[in-house]
């Protein structure tokens, strides 16, 4: 299973500007599989991505607009993208120069395969 995840993540990190991609457990925010550039802390990205997804699930549930399919947190220097599934989430960290539309499409496709 982990090698399947690894292949999915490698597909994402091949895109220009993607610094790291991870499969994360939504329940505890721990890394299930990761492909990140040196110097990036996978554990921290996983924890932040899962926490963000958890809050979004809670808020969208209260708002009555269903389960969130994609989160995009844009900062000055890059973006944190999360595609939450049921138990797992796909998390990616992208630089400023990344084609966000392409990455989003790839993440949604990959997230579907996560189940």
């Amino acid at each position, binding site marked *: 299973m982990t090698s399947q995840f690894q292949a999915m993540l490698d597909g994402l990190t091949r895109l220009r500007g993607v610094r790291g991609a991870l499969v*994360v*457990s939504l*329940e*505890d*925010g*721990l*890394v299930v599989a990761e492909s990140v550039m040196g110097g990036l*802390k996978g*554990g*921290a990205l*996983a*924890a*932040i991505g*899962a*926490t963000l997804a*958890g809050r979004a699930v809670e808020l969208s549930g209260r708002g009555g607009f269903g389960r969130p399919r994609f989160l995009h947190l844009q900062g000055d220097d890059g973006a944190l993208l999360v595609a939450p599934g049921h138990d797992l989430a796909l998390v990616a960290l992208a630089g400023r120069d990344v084609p966000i539309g392409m990455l989003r499409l790839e993440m949604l496709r990959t997230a579907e395969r996560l189940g």
Partner: protein
Amino acid sequence: MRAVEPWVVAPLRAFVAESSARLALLMTSSGQVVAQHGFVGALDLMSVAALGAGIVASSSELAVTVGWEPFRVVAHQGKEQAHFLAWFDTPRGRWIALVVFGSETKLGLVRVFFEQLVEDLAAAAPPEEEPRREVLAADFERELNASLRALFGR
């Protein structure tokens, strides 16, 4: 917040705030509480610390017995709250952190901020050991005897 040494206060307070933990205890590896912050309620902290230190000691020893490095982190997932237990080295010796957290946060986040706590404690510890201060007066035995007699109703 209660702490044996004042330099522990700021890093522990920051850890609890950032990780959204409900309670954090720092203890020596023999289970004596060094500092606490967060909601204690009716918890018997001494028992909690003794059991926490026992868990860390036994799981580390179990790892060594089967030929691994001692486990640094032990996590227990409950229905409503979870425990994170980890040992770390400080300038004052080996300590253990016991963190109680709920659905407000996640194990991963607690773990990330725990690493920060370890760094912050190492940076905050006074570089030189304070000179030993006099602890008990020479005639403490009279008071001890009176205390013990009172304790046993004699």
